[in-house]
């Protein structure tokens, strides 16, 4: 393990841990942005430039901002007085550890995964673009359609309801 991997791994895990455990929701969102940047750094170490940059562009630049805006618009910035952990947190850890063990066991013993690590593929941005435009063009188009439909839906929800007095501030 290279020292860079250890540092980015620790930063990512700390960011994720703080995102769960801090009291103030805005702090949690910022800690999550740190975790996202750490994941992007990990991708970059694996020579996956496109995924790494897209991770920063989409998750840090857009999703973290979206979450922060949602927090600000729905509640005041005050931190809750009571503890963030519920009373049954011990049971929660036990359950999640069990689920993780079973899933890990199932994945490791599955026949669908090849046992030998394949040689690292060369994935330049050009390769990714070529694949998106040829092999995966149908999924790409479908995702585009779904996102457009979602956006139109959001606009319809946000539309002002029809009223009779138009624009009282300005007269022609």
């Amino acid at each position: 393990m290279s020292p860079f991997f250890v540092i980015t791994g620790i930063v990512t895990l700390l960011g994720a841990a703080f995102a769960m455990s801090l009291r103030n929701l805005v702090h949690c969102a910022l800690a999550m942005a740190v975790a996202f940047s750490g994941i992007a750094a990990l991708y970059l170490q694996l020579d996956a430039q496109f995924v790494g940059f897209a991770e920063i562009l989409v998750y840090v630049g857009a999703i973290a901002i979206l979450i922060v805006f949602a927090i600000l618009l729905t509640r005041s910035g005050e931190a809750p007085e009571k503890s963030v952990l519920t009373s049954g947190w011990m049971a929660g850890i036990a359950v999640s550890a069990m689920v993780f063990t079973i899933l890990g066991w199932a994945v490791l013993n599955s026949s669908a995964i090849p046992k030998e690590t394949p040689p690292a593929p060369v994935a330049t941005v050009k390769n990714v673009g070529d694949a998106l435009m040829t092999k995966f063009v149908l999924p790409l188009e479908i995702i585009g359609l779904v996102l457009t439909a979602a956006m139109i839906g959001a606009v319809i929800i946000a539309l002002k309801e029809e009223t009779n007095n138009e624009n009282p501030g300005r007269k022609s």
Partner: protein
Amino acid sequence: MFDKLDQIFVTALHWLTGFLPAALQPVVSTLICIAFVMSVFPGVFALTTVLERKILGRIQNRYGPNRVGIPFTKIRLCGFGQFIPDGIKSLTKEDIVPRAADKVVHFLAPVVMLIPVLLSYSVLPFGKNMTITDYDAGLLFFFAVGGAVEVSVFMAGWSSRNKYSLLGAMRAIAQMVSYEIPLILSAVTVVMVVGSLNLSQIVAHQNQYTYGIAHWHVFTPWGLVGFVLFFIASLAESNRTPFDLPEAESEIIAGYFTEYSGFKFALFFLGEYLGMFAIIGLGITLFLGGWTSPVSFLTWIPSYVWFLSKLMTIVFVFIWIRGTLPRLRMDQLMNFAWKFMLPLALINILVAGIWHYMAADWQRWLVCSAIIFGAYAILGRGLMQNQNFGKRIYRYAE
């Protein structure tokens, strides 16, 4: 001779690192490159602050700073020494943090602002063979690190616990998110035509000459529209007039850095100007030929001189616009981004595709220009519809 002058920095770097053992060379050469960025662009920033005050002074019929020259001498330099006392003043001022502020986030915000801005310089080609990290996806890297600036603006606005700061941050983020879309879409046309996200290759594609005139992208119909869209969007991204609503001093004091003073304020100021230079540098690289010369008989001028002179010319235009145009209103800002710039950028992508596949003669000039003019006219009319641009009638003032 001129080739040597052109490559003098590259040669100097190789010569300097040549003395070291091979294991140390990459580290030292990286450090030297960082020192280059950290010294040149803050220097340009210092000069620009004086230049801006002087040009704005001229536009407003006054002198601007003209006293300070070299300290302890009588040389005045037309006031261009003004940045030295400005810097000393901001370093020695008291750092005031509001009692209610979120101390950690308040402290981190200027740092989070400056780091991505400095990172974005690492992919810009300042001159021939003068790109610090030649990423395969350099353009994507530039836009990705730019996204982190929004986080810092939010951190500054929210942690100050001041309604003006928060309002300014909300305005800034809404504006940045809206104008990032036309910015990226106008850059996409260049990527389509060049076929690469690598900024050095984009410059190399423009470094050809027909009849002595360079193949800059701005000299094509799609490139001209792309450049104008990119220019307007970069004005908005760097919060400059007429898009300076996030810092509108007559409405919300100073926006998201209202509660910052002393050195932290200076860091914000520096980050904002360095961000402006970086985005102008990207615009130059994409549309104005990067470090290439516009005409073939001037290619002997060193490439970095071309880059810096193009940069300073556009900075001058930015200052000129600041002294000329009034500020937009919030709804005008959003309408302009979503109803005019975004559709025009999408049509421009189509035009770039047509340009790429049509034969290189006068017909493609005609077809592409016709589509762009039609789109511009229709979109402009759509934007003007239901907007009564007559004389304003004051309801309560008369």
